[in-house]
């Protein structure tokens, strides 16, 4: 009886607290709702800040013209408005919505663009298109600065043609254009536009960059306390140096490091991040380690309208580190096949292919690969990569067969880029493997590896404390599994697998 009374008391008090909390929450929601609305500053009609949404490579071949000498500010304004005209036109052909056409084409030119858009709309034709490079010559700039005539040569781009939402064709183009722009209402608008010629698309000379595959034995690397955030706030050269000593102790020769697309600043790459990457490469050189650099980590759009932005990113990263001795090879994207379902295989693969071409232009020396997540997908774009990479987390009994199957499909070197076993067993996976299982796994793996002479990088050096949601999703069973792949646990104790790898 007494027990019941106490129970009732507790329930009443808890109920009281709960009702109060609910009332406070409700009031706060009403208050928050009343405070939403237009930002008062929007009354001022301030200039909107420009974001980067389209940035193909632009080269001004010449600005010498018989009219008025052009100054930098006006040149930039013409370039910006001209590229925006391309952008809105590309958008219009994709969406059928002619928004922005008004701002970037004059009356008569506008009518021509609209007519073609309407024709395509009526026939359910959709063109996804982007240009990747422009080479502009200023033919003429009038004395009063209101007429500009340009020739834009070798406008290289790609278009994907769809009809009734079905993909028909993807084609590269390389055209020369003649453009007349007028300054109207502060916009440089296209008055005349003429395709002068359609140039031949030269197949990009893909010399195969050779990789020294003499026994690549390596490991995927993140610092212990900052997994998936190697170049973040807590970047510490001393920790990296220390970790490299451990890798030296394991007698491994290669590490795989990840460069995040957003982390490095998307199209406008942050110098501070590049500096950290350079420090890592210097430390690796000192430790006599080769670095396989995986780019575009956590990138997942692949849309054709995004290509100029990813190319900008790529140029910045590649140009800043391609001369570092520790750099061994490029891995364009980690496990892109996982995005096939969401984004469509065609979209992902065409992005990979164009990014690969761009990378080859920027750096023809270092070999390039794609980090496919399964042996089944490893041979996609086999003819374009310099070596084939795949990941293997399944039962080791199938490894030999999978590896040899790939071998039959290609003459290029093959690298097993990720393999390993999580030692997590607990609430979310009570039947998981333990440390002994992992040791046995590695012993078994090394046996196969020696027999089939497989180049490999294991996953990973450390067990991690915090796994970001973006890596393994929100579900705790995935996160926990992801945290326990290391050869060294949280407290720094070396596992049995550690000595197995060390004494292989």
């Amino acid at each position, binding site marked *: 009886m007494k027990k019941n009374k106490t129970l009732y008391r507790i329930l009443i008090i808890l109920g009281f607290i709960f009702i109060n909390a609910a009332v406070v929450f409700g009031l706060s929601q009403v208050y928050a709702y009343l405070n939403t609305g237009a930002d008062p500053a929007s009354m001022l009609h301030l200039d909107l800040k420009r974001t980067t949404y389209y940035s193909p490579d632009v080269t001004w071949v010449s600005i010498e013209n018989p009219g008025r000498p052009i100054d930098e500010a006006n040149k930039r304004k013409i370039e910006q408005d001209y590229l925006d005209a391309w952008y809105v036109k590309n958008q219009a052909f994709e969406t059928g919505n002619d928004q922005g056409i008004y701002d970037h084409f004059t009356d008569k030119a506008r009518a*021509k663009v609209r007519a073609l858009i309407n024709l395509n709309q009526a026939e359910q034709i959709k063109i996804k298109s982007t240009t990747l490079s422009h080479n502009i010559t200023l033919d003429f700039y009038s004395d009063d600065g209101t007429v500009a005539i340009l020739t834009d040569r070798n406008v290289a781009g790609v278009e994907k043609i769809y009809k009734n939402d079905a993909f028909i064709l993807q084609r590269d183009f390389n055209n020369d254009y003649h453009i007349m722009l007028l300054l109207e209402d502060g916009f440089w608008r296209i008055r*005349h536009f003429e395709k002068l010629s359609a140039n031949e698309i030269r197949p990009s000379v893909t010399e195969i960059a050779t990789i020294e595959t003499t026994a690549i034995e390596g490991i995927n690397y993140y610092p212990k306390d900052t997994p998936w955030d190697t170049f973040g706030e807590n970047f510490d050269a001393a920790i990296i140096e220390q970790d490299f000593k451990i890798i030296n102790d394991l007698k491994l020769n290669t590490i795989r490091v990840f460069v995040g697309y957003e982390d490095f600043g998307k199209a406008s790459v942050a110098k501070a991040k590049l500096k950290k990457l350079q420090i890592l490469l210097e430390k690796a050189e000192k430790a006599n380690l080769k670095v396989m650099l995986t780019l575009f980590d956590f990138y997942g759009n692949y849309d054709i309208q995004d290509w100029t932005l990813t190319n900008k990113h790529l140029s910045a990263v590649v140009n800043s580190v391609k001369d570092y001795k520790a750099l061994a090879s490029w891995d364009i994207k980690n496990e892109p096949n996982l995005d096939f379902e969401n984004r469509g295989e065609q979209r992902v693969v065409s992005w990979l292919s164009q990014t690969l071409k761009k990378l080859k232009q920027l750096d023809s020396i270092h070999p390039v690969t794609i980090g496919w997540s399964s042996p089944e997908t490893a041979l996609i774009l086999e003819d374009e990569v310099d070596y084939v990479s795949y990941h293997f987390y399944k039962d080791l009994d199938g490894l030999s067969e999978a590896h040899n199957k790939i071998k039959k499909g290609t003459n290029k070197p093959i690298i097993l880029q990720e393999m390993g076993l999580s030692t997590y067993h607990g609430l979310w996976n009570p039947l998981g493997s333990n440390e002994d299982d992992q040791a046995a796994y590695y012993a078994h793996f090394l046996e196969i590896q020696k027999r089939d002479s497989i180049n490999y990088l294991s996953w990973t050096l450390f067990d991690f404390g915090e796994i970001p949601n973006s890596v393994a999703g929100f579900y705790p069973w995935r996160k926990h599994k992801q945290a326990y792949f290391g050869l060294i646990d949280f407290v720094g104790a070396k596992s049995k697998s550690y000595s197995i790898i060390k004494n292989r």
Partner: protein
Amino acid sequence: MIKTLKHIKVSILFVLGVLLMACSNTPKTVSTTVTTERFKIEIPRDQQVSSNGINVNFKEYKLSQLESIRFIVSGTFGTSVLKPTEDSGLARVVIPSEISQIAGQLEWILMEHEHFLEKGDFRLMPTASLGTVENYLGPRSITASKRDNTMLVTVPTDSLDNMLPDDTAISMNHQFKGQTVKTPVKLKAGFGWKRIAAPLVTGRLSTGSTVGVISSKELVADVFPDIAQDFSINYERTHPFADGNELMSIKTSQIKDAQGNIMTDGTLVNFFIVDEKNNHWQTTSSTINGYAFAKILHPELPCTLSVNAVIKGMAESPKMTVDFKSIITEIPKAIFDNSTLKVGPLTSYLGQLVQDGVEVELQLNETSWILLTKDGYVSQELDSLKFPKGTYSLTVKTLGLESTYPITID
């Protein structure tokens, strides 16, 4: 043991859930049919643009499989996908006017389903029928000097709004004060241009261009005077006395530029005035027919004013001095009558009473008043309690004069 069992149950539930999710996406298979039938078109040649569309006929075809054929065209403004049509047993593709009337290189690809058959490109050239001549003139206002010019840009188009080919002859004309200049120009990259040097006289310059029988609209540029040259000033006044009443007028000479063009009406002229005590005044006036006038009030005190006029940043006049004489030589003695102190009558240069409102300062021992004249007099009532009977020292200051003398109050 029970605990671990529970865990296992939970895990199994999760595993089942995951399995359910995994099964919900069944892979789709795409099948394509390949036909072996040959299709060939008559390769289009370079030709003029057309507003009626362009027919591309098939050389080899099978009507029953025409549905599978796609003709992809990519012109100046973009790409489209066309379907072949059948017309009394003949197969053809019609390139619609949206594409065929725009000049430029036209690429085409012939496809059967997803299979590439043929491709090529040809040029669409402007038609011979002329449309309009667009002119652009700027700057629209120039100065009459050797340094300045305006520029005429001519862009003629054909009847379908395409730029005309190189070497098309055009005539670019301009006219100024009855003199016409016609310049023959050959188009290059679709446009022609010429610089027109500024005439050295103000006026209006008209321009126009012709291509064959087609003419542009008239565009005009205004020629304004160049910057002003230095000028002189003088003054006019009715008398030289500092009476604080009359207006003096300052006038500039006719202000012109180096070529003798009269400044535009409304050019602002600033007049700066300084007296010998370094007091400054300023007034502004705008020109009419090159002249600017400014009016200033005569001072009350005799002085010498120094005046100069400036058009900011361009031109100025030399300094001019103007003297003002005092209107009286002596201040009349003060009278004390009926508890009122009175000074006057103050008279001007002709013996007339000074105008009302002339400032007079009275000082009786340590007390002083500033008074204004009315009908030539100033008067001040004295409080007998404050100023008991006796002799005081009185100082009177007005119109630049001052006199001090004893006065008896009774």
